[in-house]
């Protein structure tokens, strides 16, 4: 069961190839990104889980892992399979003892994609060029303002934007402590991160003075960028593959990493999130065949098909090092080495709260203090 629209073509192509090579038939069911989780839940409730299914954010997948719908792949990875993945991706996929999602220690997913976050910039609309791109967030806002260009971020991606910006002030351990509820959301680092959003709003560079919402908010933001209606957007690296599908002729754009904030003590780092990957159902009818297929899928040859057809960053270290990364992906690729490595993430309550509160902040309905208090309340509620 596949969640990704951007990688459906590559996955289908590889499944057909696998059938030809081994005689094992692989059926791909792609319900779409919005329906994926509800359908997966329904499959679990009706005891008809697929043999292999897409992994998603750890928070969303944790109930499936806790309920025993995922094979622990630790021993398989220790047996040599781990060579196919970068150490960072392996680290991000691992659940440590005592994690905040109550998942038994182990590794339940493997990933053929490395996902980082950053900005996509259209030089024609922003007068910002890759060679002399702004060094700081302040310069970036100024450049957008000078060109009368607009920046957009989907409400549903605002948590990742804030997470990335906060890394200018907070170490990975401090961020992780906040996610676990051991440290307050009302600390200076998170406050400063939201302040960047306020600065953008005050400079008048946020498109339509609001963060777009709705079920398809990020696809709409991406469409606006790839059809050259918006000058710059915040997005995840798979956005580039969406661009390839949305407007293949539009190639004149580039990506840059999380912006540096002037005077902040740390170098900003992309939120560490494993990209697309697979979970194997140990209670299915074909666990061994499923494991063999996923192993094959993550071999360098197959990963390169995903990278070329879907225009994504592979998770194989050699491919990442040797591959010629297109300009559109270069900024995202630069973030791989320094990306935050932690096995925790937002709870769903906190994520939902940030989405709504970031919208309210940009609309001027709430100040940063109120926003942080509400996010902390959401954290307390999900404790």
């Amino acid at each position, binding site marked *: 069961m596949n969640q990704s629209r951007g990688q459906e073509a590559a996955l289908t192509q590889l499944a057909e190839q696998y059938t030809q090579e081994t005689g094992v038939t692989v059926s791909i069911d792609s319900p779409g990104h919005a329906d994926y*989780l*509800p359908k997966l*839940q329904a499959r*679990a*409730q009706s005891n008809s889980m697929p043999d292999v299914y897409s992994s998603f954010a750890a928070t969303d997948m944790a*109930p*499936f892992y*806790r*309920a025993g*719908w995922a094979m622990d792949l630790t021993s398989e990875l220790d047996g040599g399979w781990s060579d196919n993945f970068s150490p960072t991706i392996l680290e991000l996929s691992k659940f440590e003892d005592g994690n905040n999602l109550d998942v038994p220690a182990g590794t339940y997913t493997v990933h053929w994609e490395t996902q980082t976050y950053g900005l996509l910039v259209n030089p024609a609309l922003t007068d910002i060029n890759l060679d002399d791109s702004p060094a700081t967030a302040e310069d970036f806002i100024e450049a957008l303002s000078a060109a009368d260009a607009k920046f957009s971020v989907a*409400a*549903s991606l605002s948590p990742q934007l804030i997470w990335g910006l906060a890394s200018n002030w907070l170490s990975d351990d401090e961020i992780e402590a906040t996610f676990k509820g051991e440290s307050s959301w009302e600390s200076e680092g998170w406050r400063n991160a939201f302040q960047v959003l306020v600065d953008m709003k005050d400079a008048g560079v946020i*498109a*339509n*003075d*609001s*963060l*777009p*919402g*709705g*079920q*398809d*908010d990020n696809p*709409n933001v991406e469409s*606006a960028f790839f059809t050259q*209606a*918006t000058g710059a957007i915040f997005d995840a690296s798979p956005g580039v593959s969406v661009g390839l599908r949305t407007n293949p002729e539009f190639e004149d754009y580039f990506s840059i990493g999380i912006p540096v904030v002037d005077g902040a003590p740390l170098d900003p780092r992309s939120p560490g999130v494993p990209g697309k990957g697979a979970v194997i159902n140990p209670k299915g009818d074909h666990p061994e065949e499923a494991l063999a297929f996923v192993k094959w899928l993550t071999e360098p040859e197959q990963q390169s098909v995903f990278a070329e057809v879907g225009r994504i960053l592979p998770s194989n270290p050699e491919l990442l090092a040797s591959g010629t990364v297109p300009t559109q992906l270069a900024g995202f690729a630069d973030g791989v080495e320094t990306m935050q490595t932690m096995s925790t993430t937002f709870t*769903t*309550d906190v994520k*939902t709260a940030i*989405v*709504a*509160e970031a*919208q*309210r902040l940009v*609309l001027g*309905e*709430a100040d940063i203090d109120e926003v942080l208090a509400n996010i902390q309340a959401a954290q307390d*509620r999900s404790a």
Partner: protein
Amino acid sequence: MTSQPVLVPTPRLKRARSGGRPLRQNLVGWLFLAPAIALIGVFTITPFGQAILLSFQSWDGVSPETPWVGFANYEFVGSDPIFWASMRNVLFFGVVGFFLGNAIALSMALAVNRITKGKTFFRTVFYLPGVLSVVVVGLLFSFILAPGSGVLNRLLEIFGLGSLAQNWLGEPAIALPAVAAVFIWFHWGFGFLLFLAGLQDVPQELYEAAELDGANAWTRFRYITWPQLAPVTSIVSLLTLLAALQIFGTVQVLTNGGPGYHTMVPTLAIFNEAFVNYRYGSAAAMSVIFGGALVLLSVLQLAITGRRSRA
């Protein structure tokens, strides 16, 4: 001497206790009703019972364990500001759908009922929105109401009304009315068709008699059309009200409850609680509270409109 009438005893028929109909006739009726009763039992009553049970349990939707937690879910929902904000928002949808939605549907039906040519055309055009999928409607209006490149703002600019252009789905004060307007457009066809059918059932003699008495248009509507439409109005208003209160797809596609929580509705809050937050227990508690409110409201409205129909 008057003769007394002779009472001849008639053979007693076995009668059922209710309605005084023969038992066999009642049995036939129940047999016809049995499939519907079975379906309602399996697909409505049983899930509602399960939801009530689940509202006292904790379940993530995936695990086999469903521990009993008593009233904890109700306490959680009681202190959840998002759910109660959604209840306030849905009242707005209810009021707008009930009054404005029905008024528009009735006006359109009255207009189409009066014309002699093109009745079929207008009947089709007015009903057309109702045949579309809610997702299609949501996406369609996403394009129309988009702030930058949306059709509506572009049209306003073309006609020199650029100052009226708005961020229709992003401004807190406008988002809720904008979504309500989409809802009305999507649902008016249903009410329109029923009102039109009701109007065509009103006997023409009543209007002719009223005209002879010198009644003007308003008087004819007030004393003939409106009372004659009472049964139709009852059912249309009830169904429109319930549809407005159960709004989900339109909101999910257009705003997903945003900006902030300004367009959050109970159905979406319940969906998020179950499928996003994996808290089926509190989602069930929300469902019970919301479902109970709908049942009460329906009973109340049927009592009021029933009294009007009998008057």
